[in-house]
């Protein structure tokens, strides 16, 4: 990983990877959404409402996957002081927050016709909302810390502490009786019928690729901004030096 400590080497790979991920993500998402909207049959109980699952499930996984990424980057920031890790954590946070929000919104839209309510404070819904708020806190903290310097150690501690919520979200439906149903997809198999299941991996990998593309774009933006700031500082220092000499010259002329 320390090979990428040099931003130039990272950018050489990140630039084409962004385009590839974006293209792949758009194609897979389009295929999954079209399949999920027009090809799969409706569910025996929920009818057409079931189709929201092709958006809801990937956004839920990526909302949690985003914080997993922040936690790994935080570990790299604290332990190895990897210069790109804090850049990555700052890049992931708003993208992860967006996916967590989409998960909450689509779940709410699904819950109204299915359960008969927009929102209930059960274990799964509450812990997912906490994840969204953690994202907002992390964004604010990381932005405030960035003003002082790029190392991002305080936000990294927050990133590791916040990761405690991830197993709580995952196990909430097993530990407590919840309104939210249990897991449909486990390592041992799936309780979603195959004819309803197949668009889900398409949207899952599609959204993951879009997530990755957005994170790489944001990382490149921050690296470019850092270079601009450094260049502006150098120019300001140079012109201040010139300004000081011309200023004294003028003073002497007056």
């Amino acid at each position: 990983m320390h090979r990428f400590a040099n931003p130039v080497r990272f950018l050489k790979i990140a630039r084409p990877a962004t385009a590839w991920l974006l293209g792949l993500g758009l194609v897979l998402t389009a295929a999954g959404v079209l399949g999920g909207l027009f090809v799969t049959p409706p569910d025996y109980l929920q009818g057409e409402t079931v189709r929201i699952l092709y958006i809801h499930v990937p956004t839920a996984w990526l909302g949690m996957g985003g914080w997993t990424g922040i936690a790994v980057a935080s570990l790299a920031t604290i332990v190895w002081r990897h210069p790109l890790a804090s850049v990555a954590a700052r890049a992931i946070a708003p993208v992860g927050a967006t996916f967590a929000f989409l998960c909450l919104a689509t779940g709410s839209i699904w819950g109204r016709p299915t359960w008969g309510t927009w929102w209930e404070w059960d274990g799964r819904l509450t812990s997912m909302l906490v994840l969204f708020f953690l994202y907002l806190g992390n964004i604010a903290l990381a932005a405030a810390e960035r003003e002082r310097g790029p190392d991002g150690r305080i936000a990294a501690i927050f990133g590791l502490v916040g990761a405690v919520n991830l197993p709580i979200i995952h196990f909430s439906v097993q530990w407590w009786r919840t309104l939210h149903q249990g897991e449909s997809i486990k390592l041992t198999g799936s309780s979603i019928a195959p004819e309803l299941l197949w668009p889900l991996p398409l949207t899952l990998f599609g959204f993951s690729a879009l997530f990755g593309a957005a994170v790489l774009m944001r990382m490149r933006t921050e690296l470019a901004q850092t270079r601009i700031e450094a260049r502006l500082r150098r120019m300001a220092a140079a012109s201040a030096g010139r300004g000081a000499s011309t200023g004294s010259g003028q003073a002497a002329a007056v």
Partner: protein
Amino acid sequence: MRAAPKHQRLALVLLAMAALVGAALLAMWGLGDRAAYFRTPQDIAAGRADVGQPLRLGGMVQQGSIEKQPDGVSIRFVVTDGPASVPVQFRGITPDLFKEGSGVVAEGRLTPAGVFTADTILAKHDERYMPPQLGNQAAELATRQTLDR
């Protein structure tokens, strides 16, 4: 020999994370049953629910138990979890997915007579998704297994 600073930091972070996760697990374990979103008919049979206090009752709508009342807007049905069951009365509109043999969560109070008076009815969906042509029998069986857990 002193360990390298990065190894010290790694050990420190791992220790801190282990302590944090341990604390969180203890807290969740302590929360236990109080974090449950609903009570089951077995809880009520065992006397773990106070009469007259607001509570949620979850279970399966017993087959053949839904009776429309003469006033046209009230219904009575029985919520069961297998070993125990509770009669419920409700006045209002139920969600589309509320039907016999499927999961339900009712919000309301238990009357001294042992009848649950519901203010709100929520349908509980389970983790199975299938096309309409597959029968409902498999669904009912699995819902019962989910509730037993």
